[in-house]
């Protein structure tokens, strides 16, 4: 179990290319980003802009890159318990119960202690009573909660979320966003969420990193200084959202169409 030590991430001049059969595809180019301990950062961009690749590099799942990616001054080159990850699919093991799934990441701890930690995490994500359920018995939102519990059980320094609510319906999505905020406020773990949902990015992040496409570069970093809980329909929220929208969409002139 890692101590909840620091959790500051430094990325400098990060570049990554994928070699396909014909040519080299630039996925990321010259990314520079600093994330402070306890921050909640949203990374937003189109599909294929490299945001997932960026997250996977931080997670250590891809390590063929150029540049510096360092967690607390240590270069990241492989996955580890200090960086937890929640994927778009819950990736719960179908043959284990919720309790066993959450405990999957815990190792070499006396049974009683394990039970206590696991139960605490399950309560934290609001799944009390579902300890013995199997993943196929859970709804999408509940399964993701279990996945989040599993990711947090080792108290990672950073929690990486790769479009975690992408496969949920709109209402469950909003509920889960509130949930993850609640967990963040309780635990204080540094969180980085990657999403293509601009609303989600603004609602959750203290800063929103806008990535351009192919290759992915940091177009803009928009600070979100709104007090919590944030009102999605307030004027200030809409202002921030508009600033980000502008990065992706330009105002189109609506042509007049005459019809007789």
């Amino acid at each position: 179990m890692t101590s909840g030590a620091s959790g500051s991430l430094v990325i400098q001049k990060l570049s990554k290319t994928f070699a396909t059969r014909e040519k080299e595809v630039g996925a990321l180019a010259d990314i520079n980003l600093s994330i402070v301990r306890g921050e909640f950062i949203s990374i937003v961009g189109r599909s294929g802009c490299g945001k997932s690749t960026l997250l996977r590099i931080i997670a250590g799942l891809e390590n063929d890159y150029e540049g510096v990616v360092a967690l607390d001054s240590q270069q990241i080159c492989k996955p580890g318990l200090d960086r937890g990850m929640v994927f778009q699919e819950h990736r719960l093991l179908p043959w284990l119960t919720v309790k066993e799934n959450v405990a999957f990441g815990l190792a070499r701890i006396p049974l009683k202690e394990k039970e206590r930690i696991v139960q605490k995490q399950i309560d934290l994500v609001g799944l009390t009573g579902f300890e013995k359920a199997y993943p196929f018995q859970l709804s999408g939102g509940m399964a993701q909660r279990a996945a989040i519990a599993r990711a947090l059980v080792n108290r990672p320094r950073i929690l990486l979320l790769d479009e975690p609510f992408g496969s949920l319906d709109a209402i469950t999505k909003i509920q889960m966003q509130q949930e993850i905020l609640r967990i963040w406020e309780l635990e204080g773990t540094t969180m980085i969420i990657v999403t293509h949902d601009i609303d989600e990015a603004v609602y959750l992040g203290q800063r929103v990193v806008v990535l351009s496409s192919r290759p992915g570069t940091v177009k803009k970093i928009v600070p979100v200084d709104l007090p919590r809980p944030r009102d999605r329909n307030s004027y200030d929220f809409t202002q921030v959202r508009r600033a980000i929208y502008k990065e992706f969409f330009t105002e189109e002139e609506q042509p007049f169409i005459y019809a007789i």
Partner: protein
Amino acid sequence: MTVVIRQGQLQPAALKLKPVVWRLQPESFKRALQYVILPLAILVVWQGLAQAGLIQPLILPSPTRVAATLWSMLVSGQLEKHALTSILRVLQGFGLAALLGIVLGMAIGLSSTLDRTTDLAVQVLKPIPPLAWIPLAILWFGIDEPSKIFIIFLGAFFPILLNVITGIRNTDSKFVELAKILEVSRWKFIRQVVIPGALPAIMTGLRVGLACAWMCVVAAEMIAASSGVGYLIMDARQLSQTDVVVVGMIVIGVIGKIMDDLIRRLEHRLIGWRVSYQGE
């Protein structure tokens, strides 16, 4: 299915074709009937052709003749003796194949080196039908039980081996990533991710293996056997007792089905979660 007919309401066209009597039967009865109707029809046609003298008793005896022979063999205890002998042989051969197949399959699946080393041998041996092994089996093991069990073992071994390897190789890469992030030890990973994930394929291998083992019984019992269903068929053929041959075939078919059902039950108990996992 109840249909409320209101004045002027359109009835689906299909409903009009089914008489009320049919519609009023319970669903379970209708379903049972569907299972039974084809075999019954075949039996009726078969009996009809035999009674009309259109097929000679030597070529294919009538169902009634077969049933009579079946009954007399059952009563005399003959059938039981032969069936049990064969089942015992199959279980021994299959058991050995399952043990070796699973152990070897896991080793090969988990180690690329071992996979590359054994690949050629497996690929060359696999297509050789168990029947072709009979001369060697006799030379190596004599004409007693071991040689027959060897043939049955060969029939079951390759399906099991290959399915186990496939099951292990096809461990979902998503779980591999997960295990890396959670720094799960290799042993725990194999125990909690690879093996449960491979179980569906392993069970398929066992089912196919058992079916193959049972099919090899006839071939195996061609090696100077004096009992068993395969021997029964071979011996009856010598004596032109076609009815006994058919009885033997039916027994093989029925026992085969029962064995398959048993494995299916086991499969369901072990991997009940699979049914719902398919959707992912």
